Structures are given as structure tokens and as C-alpha cells.
């Protein structure tokens, strides 16, 4: 099992300005709201890829599904 704090730490390690809210009812399906300056000027698909890459191999394994809502923060 992977816990939410671990996911948040991974996201923030690769996106230092990010603010992350994450929920899960069953510990395998997660829903994340992410605010970050790093998303500025980046198409939605690429934003989601950034998040998946930040979390790494757990996505698709311990994390069965991760629904993502990204929000651009303008400096």
C-alpha cells in the first residue's frame, strides 16, 4: 500500500511550488488536486504526464487509478 503523504512528497520533490490535496476511499484509487507554477504554459496532457512521472512506477501498480485535476498558479 502506498500512503497519500508519500505521493505528495514525490510530487513536491519534482515540483517544489506545488500544493497538493489528495483523497482516497480505498487506498488504491486516488483523486488529486494540484496547484503549481510549473504547469504554466504547459498543455493539460503534458501537465498530467509531469505528475505521473513525478510519482513514478507506483502509478498503474500500487496506485490502480489516479484522477488528476491540475491548476496553474501564476507567479
Amino acid at each position, binding site marked *: 500500500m502506498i500512503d497519500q503523504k508519500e505521493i505528495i512528497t514525490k510530487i513536491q520533490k519534482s515540483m517544489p511550488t506545488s500544493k497538493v490535496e489528495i483523497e482516497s476511499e480505498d487506498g488504491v484509487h486516488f483523486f488529486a488536486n494540484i496547484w503549481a507554477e510549473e504547469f504554466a504554459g504547459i498543455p*493539460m*496532457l503534458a501537465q*498530467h504526464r509531469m505528475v*505521473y512521472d513525478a510519482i513514478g512506477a507506483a502509478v*498503474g501498480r500500487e496506485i490502480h*487509478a489516479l484522477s488528476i485535476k491540475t491548476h496553474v498558479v501564476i507567479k
Partner: protein
Amino acid sequence: MSVLSRIETYVGDHEVVLFMKGTADFPQCGFSGKVVKILKDLSVDFFVVNVLDDEEVREGVKVFSNWPTIPQLYVGGELVGGCDIVVDLFESGELQKMLTATAS
């Protein structure tokens, strides 16, 4: 034929391709089912690849697109995204534009 070239053929030969768990009539996962419903609501013809029947493609498509989850929707040979993005694009009307653009 390597799995990546098989995937390339699927994506290249059909306008709209959905890699999903299950079939259009019997989706085996909620996220796949949501995308199927949207495509059906838009009465779009789409080619389905049931990754549950093909373990090689199930993993290969994640490498092909550098996208770690299923379902994956392709339009005009390009990855549109997974369930979240398809829902977002549908709600904003963007998906309809993409589908008519490639259909003409």
C-alpha cells in the same frame, strides 16, 4: 511484429482508437466505461483494443505513449489522454472539435 509496431498499426489505421479494459458493450472498469459512454453519446465510431485480452499490448501501450494507465484514447493517431482528460475535454466541448476536425 513487435508489440509497439502492432500498436502503431492500430493507432495509424483508425481515426479513433480506445485501448480499454473490456469491450464497448462490456467495459470491465469504471474509467474505461466512462470514456465509452462519452464516445457513444457523441455517436463516434471507434476501434476498441481490449487490453485484458492482450497482456503484451496492456503494458506496451504504456511505453508507446509514456502514459502509465488504461484507458487511453487516440484521435488522428495522437494520444488524447486517459479518463480525466477525455471527460474534461468533453465538458469543455474541446473533444467534439477534435473529433470533427479529424473526421473531415
